């Protein structure tokens, strides 16, 4: 840990509590904590694998290969390279919703709000995107796509905005209200495309699935085979949103107000910022990110929505929480954490993980455990500093003669 960036204050005041000292240090740009967090989480996940009688190194190797990230190594050639490219395209596809639901958590977090409603906002977005994609088949492609994506983003923004509105007006805690909105979205969505629902494909009454979206609403694929889930331009939209996130937070009045409220609502209110408005806008914008994720998924590679997608949306959105927290709610961090978790989730999927190395149904849960550990340790980064400090204290004690230490105390 010796290569940590130096604290911005020359001599950290020993009397300050850990949290404050840590905050000072973190503002100096600490990347060590997220890194250490990830390493510790993976190590503990490895222990779980070991305890249940599998080889952790082989397991992680299998997950890495399953994620397709080995495509980046030039020595992987031939058929292996083709498989890797295919896997990496899938990982890229998964990165899109993970980055966007990550941003949905991150933006609200900067305003001091914890948005666990990415799931509901994603579902509302994906249902809206699907239905617009089905309906406006006569429009020219680009216009159709823009309308569908915009509508889905707005739908997500409304869903997030409800929670923001409740927080801003009656003070209902956003954690509870967003979770309730998640379940409402699940059931309403399941009703809409479920058996006998208004959006169900009536040509197959026995299958709870929507009608397929129009061909002209499919997003263009820029890498891989469009018929085999190649990587579509939604990837660049997600990257663009990362830039937009940074711009809004750092370069606009809105972003300044959101961050001010996040640091201290009271201080922000005293300096004339409308806190309630910030709460509402932050939640609405967050919801918009998640709604956009839904639209890009449906227009990019799913093309028709089935009830299972709605029910497993929780996996994407909750991974988004881990992405945002591990990424320290920064744009670049969210991107890197997005790569990590997309690789992890895709690498542990039933299709990609070699069952002889590790049973995929276990691996999926291993991913959840690692996510949990990441969130746990990121939330308590003081722990790492604590250990570091203990070591330093021990060194100081060893170096100084006992008498001098007594005087110093």
């Amino acid at each position, binding site marked *: 840990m010796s290569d940590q960036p130096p604290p911005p204050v020359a001599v950290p005041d020993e009397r300050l509590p850990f949290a404050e000292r840590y905050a000072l240090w973190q503002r100096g740009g600490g990347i060590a904590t997220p890194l250490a967090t990830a390493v510790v989480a993976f190590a503990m996940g490895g222990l779980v694998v070991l305890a249940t009688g599998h080889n952790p190194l082989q397991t992680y190797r299998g997950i890495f290969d399953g994620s397709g990230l080995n495509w980046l190594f030039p020595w992987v050639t031939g058929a292996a390279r083709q498989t890797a490219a295919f896997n990496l395209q899938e990982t890229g596809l998964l990165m899109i919703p993970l980055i966007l639901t990550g941003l949905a958590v991150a933006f609200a977090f900067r305003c001091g709000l914890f948005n666990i409603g990415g799931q509901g906002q994603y579902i509302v977005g994906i249902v809206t995107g699907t239905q617009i994609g089905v309906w406006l088949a006569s429009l020219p492609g680009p216009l159709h796509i823009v309308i569908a994506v915009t509508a889905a983003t707005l739908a997500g923004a409304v869903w997030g905005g409800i929670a923001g509105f409740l927080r801003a007006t009656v003070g*209902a805690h956003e954690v509870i209200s967003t979770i309730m909105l998640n379940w409402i979205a699940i*059931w309403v969505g399941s009703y809409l495309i479920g058996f006998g629902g208004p959006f169900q494909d009536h040509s197959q009454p026995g299958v709870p699935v929507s009608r397929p979206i129009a061909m002209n609403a499919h997003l263009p694929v820029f890498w891989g085979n469009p018929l085999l889930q190649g990587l579509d331009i939604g990837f660049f939209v997600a990257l663009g949103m990362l830039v937009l996130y940074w711009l809004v937070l750092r370069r606009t009045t809105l972003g300044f107000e959101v961050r001010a409220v996040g640091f201290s609502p009271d201080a922000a209110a005293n300096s004339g910022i409308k806190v309630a408005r910030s709460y509402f806008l932050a939640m609405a914008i967050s919801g918009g990110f998640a709604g956009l994720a839904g639209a890009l998924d449906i227009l990019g590679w799913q093309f028709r929505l089935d009830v299972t997608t709605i029910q497993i949306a929780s996996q994407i959105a909750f991974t988004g929480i881990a992405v945002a927290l591990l990424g320290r709610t920064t744009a670049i961090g969210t991107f890197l954490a997005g790569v990590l978790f997309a690789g992890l989730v895709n690498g542990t999927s039933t299709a990609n993980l070699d069952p002889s190395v590790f049973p995929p149904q276990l691996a999926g849960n291993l991913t959840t455990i690692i996510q949990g550990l990441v969130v746990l340790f990121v939330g308590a980064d003081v722990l790492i500093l604590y250990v570091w400090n203990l070591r330093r204290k021990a060194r100081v004690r060893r170096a100084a003669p006992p008498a001098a230490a007594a005087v110093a105390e």
Partner: protein
Amino acid sequence: MSAVAARVEEARDPRLLGLLGIGLGLVALWLVLPPETVRVVPVPVVLGAAGVVCGALTISGGRRRLGWGAVFSGASGILGAFLITRASVPHLDAVLTWSTVFGAMLVFATPLTYAALGGMFSERSGVVNIGLEGMMLIGAFFGAYGADKTGSWVLGILIGIASGCALGLVHAVFAIHLRANQIVGGTAINFLALGITGYLYNDIYGNNGTPNDLPAIPNVHLAFLSSIPPHGLGSFLESIFGDLNLMIWLSYVVLVLSWLVLFRTALGLRIRSVGEHPRAADTVGISVYGIRYASVVTSGGLAAMGGVFLSLGFVNSFTEDMTAGRGFIALAALIFGRWRPFGAFGATLLFGFASALAPQFQNVQSWQTYGTLFEALPYVLTLVAVAGLIGRSIPPAADGRPYAKQ
């Protein structure tokens, strides 16, 4: 003359108007459901509309919360009236037997009661516990696993409680000593429980699921209830209370005990003082960390009991993510019940009622298509409740704030 004016003024008291509106809406809703089932749409619609108007007046009179409550209540009366025309009465009658609904309400409310009481201890001591969901889930798994391995449901319950306490301890360490963000920590607890239970479940039971011969927690048979005098009442009571699970009765014991501990003992006073003003409590020599640790661990154990009830007392098996958001509903019930044991219990009954009603509606033939929509009912209700239908509830002053010893 002035007396009359005063009377008029009194009648326009927004509070009374609001309550009247809520009452009108409820009457409208009651009319359309069995055993009344008024088939004429206008009557409940008119009553509901009157409720909405009362609500609107209440809002303009300054009591916005109460007013919105009346508007909501009136609107649900109108909605019910319209829905009723689409359902056929005989079906509704056969399906909606109230004793079944009430019995199911008690069953659905029980896991929430345990978890809400658990949450109460944690939050009263000043630690927000979003991790109730995970603590329930891990209790559900280890309860089932323990009962399976030891062959005894008693040991199953104990093992389940121990697992919940362990997870509570993790939350406590991060929230108290490491002063982490308690909401983030609680979310992590939920992830961990989901991952650990899913992992172990797949590793141990695989595709076969938990064995069918899990030792179940027995039901308590109260046959004497049917002999209670007025004829009909006895059998009504028996069909509700006659065959409830032991864990349901235990939850009422725990409820009363929690109230006694929290409001009638020195320990309870300490817990509450630590949650309201830790510095002051510390000054008079109460160990803030000690009390908080004990409360959060207790919280985990109680939430786990709710989970054990789910797996061993209710469905008699474990499935992945079987708690399905109940921990969060319990948390909402706690807030709705203003961090008080009986208030929270009342709220869990309300949510239990909504959960019990949903499948009943699904049985109505002509509503089958909307069946899925009714599943959302408890969640809509929770949202409305949390939005502060009946007044803002004020959390313990130090809830969610880490305390740094000096």
